[in-house]
């Protein structure tokens, strides 16, 4: 377990996180076997996040837990890399709207559009926004870092990164070392046991890091 100096702690809505895990199990989002990942690496497990985020209850719970996590952080835009972030961003926007909280949403394309507008970022992202990046899963961190870079190139500040599942293969550590405030709802490490995070993994600008329990 990695311990960092902690300027503050964040508390997740554990009940929602636990319910998301239950939904994940119900819809078969956690798979075990031998899989080839997009990076070419092989893995003994696979997390199919869209089975949760494209289910009615899963989408609602994910939207709720992330919106609650973001409230009060000063975040005014939420987005992530296509396609994992699409349903998450939409769910957060709907839940936030129900609470009377205005938040802009956007999607970062994997590759810049090669015709028409040639845009890399679709949706609503104003320069200077305080942004939360969301994704369904983090492995080595490649997708999340792509989204972060695109957002920072658009002159916005990434103040929070939230993923549903951390596969504990270096991505979250990379983000923490880069100084990003990172939270995962669940961990799905080698061996296949899914763990609901009891508090957020946090890294802040202050004190050079945070605590991870």
């Amino acid at each position: 377990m990695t311990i960092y100096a902690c300027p503050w702690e964040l508390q997740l809505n554990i009940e929602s996180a636990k319910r998301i895990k239950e939904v994940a199990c119900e819809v078969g989002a956690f798979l075990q076997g031998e899989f080839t990942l997009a990076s070419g690496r092989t893995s003994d497990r696979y997390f199919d996040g869209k089975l949760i985020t494209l289910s009615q209850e899963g989408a609602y719970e994910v939207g709720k837990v992330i919106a609650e996590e973001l409230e009060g952080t000063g975040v005014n835009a939420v987005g992530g890399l296509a396609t994992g972030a699409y349903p998450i961003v939409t769910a957060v926007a709907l839940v936030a709207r129900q609470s009377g909280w205005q938040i802009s949403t956007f999607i970062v394309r994997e590759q810049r559009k090669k015709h028409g507008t040639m845009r890399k970022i679709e949706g609503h992202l104003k320069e200077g926004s305080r942004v939360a990046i969301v994704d369904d899963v983090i492995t080595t961190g490649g997708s999340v870092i792509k989204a972060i870079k695109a957002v920072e190139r658009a002159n916005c500040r990434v103040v929070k990164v939230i993923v549903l599942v951390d596969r504990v293969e270096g991505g979250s550590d990379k983000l923490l070392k880069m100084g990003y405030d990172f939270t995962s709802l669940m961990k799905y490490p080698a061996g296949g046991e899914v763990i609901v995070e009891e508090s957020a993994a946090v890294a802040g600008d202050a004190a050079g890091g945070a605590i991870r329990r």
Partner: protein
Amino acid sequence: MSRNLQQLREMLQEGLYVDNLWQLASLCKDLAMDDPYPLPFFVMRQVFMEIATSWDERPLPVDEANYVKSKMLKPLEDIIQTIEVGASKDEIFDRLNDFVIAWLIALP
């Protein structure tokens, strides 16, 4: 051209997986732009993109990936070899045909 063909060969040696397939497709586009006979690169690009799209964002069993790899790598190497030695268009066309057949067999 030969430098790019070497790059293509090296990338193929890394294996067939989603991230690499997109890069292979991108390299094939460059090769097609540079070559007076772009057809082989265009066909390879389409096939790489097709496989990448079919594998992306889903649980891909290692056995399935290995099966496709086992069917595709040799015909790909044969095309590169044929282009490299400056073989006739007919010969390149034949190798291209073998490659497309291999792809049709390999994909479910």
